[in-house]
């Protein structure tokens, strides 16, 4: 079990958090406050596309070299995108922490987004979209979000569409990168059996000299729909239903508002484990899954 939590803020605003444990395996991640929500309509899916492209080559590494850098020593590197965050993270033997931190720095700062890889990755994501369309129990979450927040980026799905994926050329990635991923909205997180001073020194070496950068795109508060009832014919054998409505803002720290409605299988009581501003109530009898999305104007 971990105990001490150490934190540090670098000159450029990047924050570091460190938790010590006794494990031989360590974990490191770069989490940035940029996601689908930052996209303009013509950029639908770009934050997720960007996450994929981080693995498609840097100034000094091919895609194969990126993946094999940690695999060669038994570790792995991965990433995910949500509506409001992107994370690049790695798991590895503790002695390889510098290798992992340098790799994540390289893909975050020095990706080249080669054109042929863009086309290939667009195909990969298109397959992902089509696969998703065949899964109504998952698709209903996306449709519910569109229903709740129409005409707002937070209501759009993460993957994008066939039409939008075709538009990610002519500098779209570079523009999105330049206008988002602010240094004061980046957190480096480490859990492992390496002293804080070592992690701080390595983080300083790889991330401390990144020029300070602030957010250029201000987040806009969405307006939630209310009282709508929509039935869609999906020609499925089962019926899927969902109730969705606006909940409490993340900045509402009253315990009852934070925790009391959290029931069923999706326990997300830990602040930050899942933070969102609205709730979804999945209609399964005796099993209610409730999600809370971050405040629409939480930190900005």
């Amino acid at each position, binding site marked *: 079990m971990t105990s001490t939590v150490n934190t540090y803020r670098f000159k450029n605003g990047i924050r570091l958090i460190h938790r010590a444990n006794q494990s031989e395996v360590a*974990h490191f991640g770069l989490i940035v406050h940029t996601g689908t929500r930052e996209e303009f309509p013509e950029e639908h899916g770009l934050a997720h596309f960007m996450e994929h492209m981080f693995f498609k080559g840097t100034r000094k590494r091919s895609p194969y070299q990126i993946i094999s850098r940690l695999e060669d020593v038994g570790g792995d590197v991965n990433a995910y995108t949500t509506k409001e965050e992107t994370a690049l993270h790695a798991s590895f033997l503790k002695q390889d922490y510098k290798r992992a931190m340098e790799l994540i720095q390289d893909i975050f700062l020095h990706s080249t987004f080669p054109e042929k890889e863009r086309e290939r990755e667009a195909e990969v994501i298109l397959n992902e979209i089509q696969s998703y369309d065949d899964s109504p129990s998952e698709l209903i979450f996306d449709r519910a979000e569109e229903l709740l927040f129409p005409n707002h980026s937070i209501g759009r799905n993460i993957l994008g569409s066939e039409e939008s994926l075709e538009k990610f050329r002519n500098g779209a990635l570079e523009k999105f990168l330049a206008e988002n991923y602010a240094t004061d909205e980046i957190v480096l997180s480490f859990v492992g059996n390496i002293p804080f001073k070592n992690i701080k020194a390595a983080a300083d070496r790889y991330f401390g000299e990144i020029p300070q950068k602030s957010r250029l795109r201000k987040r806009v508060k969405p307006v939630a729909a209310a009282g709508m009832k929509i039935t869609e014919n999906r020609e499925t054998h089962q019926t899927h239903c969902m109730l969705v409505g606006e909940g409490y803002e993340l900045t509402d720290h009253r315990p*009852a508002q934070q925790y009391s409605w959290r029931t069923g299988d999706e326990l997300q009581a830990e602040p930050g484990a899942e933070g969102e501003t609205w709730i979804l109530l999945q209609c399964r009898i005796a099993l209610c899954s409730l999600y809370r999305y971050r405040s629409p104007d939480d930190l900005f």
Partner: protein
Amino acid sequence: MQVTWDEISKLRTKLIPDARLNFAKKQMIGQLAIARENYEHLMLATGKSILIFDRVDSLETIRRNLDEITATQIRDVANEVLDIKTLNQLIFE
């Protein structure tokens, strides 16, 4: 759907018995403690907590917060959030 609305109606009108509420609190703390043994998850959750709140709550803090919650508060929250007039309904069939 009617069964679901009936359950929501109960949440909005009746108080959860103390024993059931205490059980739910213990279950939540237990699941959180177990989740924290997954260090990859802990790394990501801790990072997100700093990103959003600029702080990390200990399990003890969360336990104290949970202990403060009463059945009346839960009923009030259900009345505020689970309102048939504001909830949207989506059905795939």
